[in-house]
């Protein structure tokens, strides 16, 4: 097959992004409901709050993964021929998982949170039946199998085309002194690294899911709670981070259309991605720092790697973006704005995350609202911004070089930025004031913060709705022309 025939599966990806956009809005509405309930704007039965918390957590993590995966599929499709059938199988399994998860939550009243921390699914204190927990877990398994297929469908052709995994990661440039010009393009290096770590993450997740399932069916089957906790946070951390590392490929591929400067696989770039590959997996113990029975060196590793993780992000991804933009005279439109915002929000959100990764800080910040504070920054202002940037680019009019920003675009962007910044800032402040996370009912002293947070959240929901509408209209126009 000649190079010219290799084309991304634009239709499937556009459809997935529409789906993702709609789910983002829907899940944000659930988030708004939770925040309003904490602020006592509305009354919500705690059991329902925790079901919504579960739906929001699982739904958001899932759709972040889905939108990231669609972005990576699109751009890897510029370099290797991918199998459309595999993509539809992935999407089908994903949607089957969604149906199972929603049934478990809203029919079975499962409210064990997206982390299904062992042994909570089986010990619900009467709030849900084992079948509901089992259905939830099977939903995850379906999505997990879908992702394994997805990475197989990406990994195999990439490895074949680029002559092995090591070469796809660019190691011949770093270790064997090959010319960086002979290295694979940035998209391929990123795809290879994500494929490795998220396959491992998913496999570990599958193992603990199966163990949880067996425990549900055969309660005598003992699983070590500490081991299960390690496995769950390894999976959870790797999976949600993979979504951002897949979405950033949109930055590598789209920003050059505006700057006229191709994103290069330089040595720092290749080394950064090898470091990311390692760090993403080694960093998960930052979730276990209040489990003092863990070996001390593992907790130290969690703290140190949390910090090191910030080096490739700031010194390579963000730094290079700055260099590429400098003096490029790029014309700003909604797509470029959101993509650059995505890198900025991701970088800034890493700061409170790194600080919470310190053992001394974690002792007083762990599981306070500081935590949703930092991860909503690099999700809302990171992964989600990049996804909507990609969507805006998909339906842009004309060439990137002649783009521009309408007043409506500016208002949408500004509202989103202010809403998301305010919403996350309130979480950080509440965390510093020792408000615990995941509490359906708040103490009287916390209500004011919750109310301010709710108002900012409403701005986010509104502007996101506008972004989705604009995309849908753009798609419709594209169909007609």
């Amino acid at each position, binding site marked *: 097959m000649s190079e010219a025939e290799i084309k991304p599966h634009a239709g499937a990806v556009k459809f997935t992004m529409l789906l993702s956009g709609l789910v983002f809005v829907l899940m944000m509405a659930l988030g708004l409901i939770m925040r309003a309930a904490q602020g006592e704007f509305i009354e919500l039965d*705690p059991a329902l709050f*925790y079901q919504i918390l579960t739906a929001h957590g699982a739904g958001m993590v899932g759709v972040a993964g889905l939108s990231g995966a669609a972005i990576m599929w699109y751009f890897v499709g510029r370099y290797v021929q991918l199998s459309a059938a595999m993509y539809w199988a992935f999407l089908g399994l994903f949607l089957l998982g969604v149906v199972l998860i929603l049934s478990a939550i809203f029919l079975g009243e499962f*409210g*064990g*949170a997206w982390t299904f*921390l062992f*042994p*909570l699914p089986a010990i*619900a*204190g009467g709030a849900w039946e084992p079948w509901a927990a089992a259905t939830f877990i099977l939903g995850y398994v379906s999505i997990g199998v879908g992702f394994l297929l997805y990475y197989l469908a990406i990994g195999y052709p990439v490895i074949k085309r680029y002559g092995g995994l090591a070469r796809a990661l660019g190691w011949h440039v770093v270790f064997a002194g090959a010319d960086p010009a002979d290295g694979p393009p940035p998209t391929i290096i990123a795809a290879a690294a994500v494929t490795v770590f998220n396959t491992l993450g998913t496999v570990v997740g599958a193992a603990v899911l199966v163990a949880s399932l067996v425990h549900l069916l055969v309660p005598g089957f003992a699983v*070590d*709670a*500490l081991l299960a*906790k390690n496995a769950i946070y390894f999976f959870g951390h790797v999976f949600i981070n993979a979504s951002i590392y897949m979405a950033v490929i949109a930055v590598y591929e789209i920003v050059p259309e505006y700057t006229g400067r191709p994103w290069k696989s330089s040595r*720092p770039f290749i080394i950064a991605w090898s470091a990311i590959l390692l760090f993403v997996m080694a960093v998960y113990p930052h979730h276990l720092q*209040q*489990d*003092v*029975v863990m070996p*001390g060196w593992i907790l130290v590793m969690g*703290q*140190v790697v949390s*910090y*090191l993780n910030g*080096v490739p992000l700031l*010194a*390579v991804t963000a*730094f290079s*973006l*700055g*260099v590429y*933009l*400098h*003096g490029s*005279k790029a014309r*700003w439109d909604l797509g470029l704005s959101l993509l*650059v915002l995505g890198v*900025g929000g991701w*970088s*800034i959100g890493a*700061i409170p995350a790194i*600080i919470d990764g*310190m*053992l*001394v*800080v974690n*002792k*007083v*910040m*762990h599981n306070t609202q500081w935590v949703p504070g930092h991860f909503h920054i690099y999700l809302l202002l990171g992964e989600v911004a990049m996804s909507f940037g990609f969507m805006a680019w998909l339906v842009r009019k004309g060439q990137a070089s002649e783009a521009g920003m309408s007043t409506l675009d500016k208002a949408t962007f500004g509202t989103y930025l202010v809403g998301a910044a305010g919403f996350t800032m309130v979480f*950080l402040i509440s965390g*510093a*004031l*020792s408000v*615990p996370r*995941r*509490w*359906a*009912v*708040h103490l009287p002293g916390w209500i004011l913060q919750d109310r301010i947070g709710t108002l900012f959240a409403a701005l986010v929901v509104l502007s996101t709705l506008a972004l989705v509408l604009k995309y849908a209209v753009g798609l419709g126009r594209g169909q007609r022309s």
Partner: protein
Amino acid sequence: MQTLVLAVTLALMILLAFVFYRVVRATNADRQLGDTNSRRSQLIWVMLAVGLLVTVASLREWPHALASGDAAIQVNATGGQWYWEIDRSELPAGKPIVFNLHTEDVNHGFGVVDSEGRLLFQTQAMPGYVNQVEYVFDTPGDYRVLCMEFCGVGHHDMLDEFTVVAN
């Protein structure tokens, strides 16, 4: 502690946001950038050096140390859906106290806040393990226990209290 953490975090976030603002503005710059590779290396070395310093400074004293050995007063606390059981309701000020955390069922989090609601320390309670945490209360008064790990629909109801008395 929390105020300091918040202040440092906000300062760093604002600084980085400002850098991004400058980057966006510089899209239209005419001046060429200097040697970006050496600037990148400088940034990496500075980050590594700062990281090393902070790591050493923050871990020199092990944050989870049970420093006092047998001299400490032992308290057993057990979490269950959805209550705490603490085997002492009055504790002396100024003496090291070791809390031994157990659970009857799922994971819970044992967090202690002072009368102003400020979290002082926490640790997890986990099936099959006993987590130990040591603390010295400086001021007598009422302290509250909050659950800091999601444990089901009664999670937010897991509040308890104890008193610290001068001795």
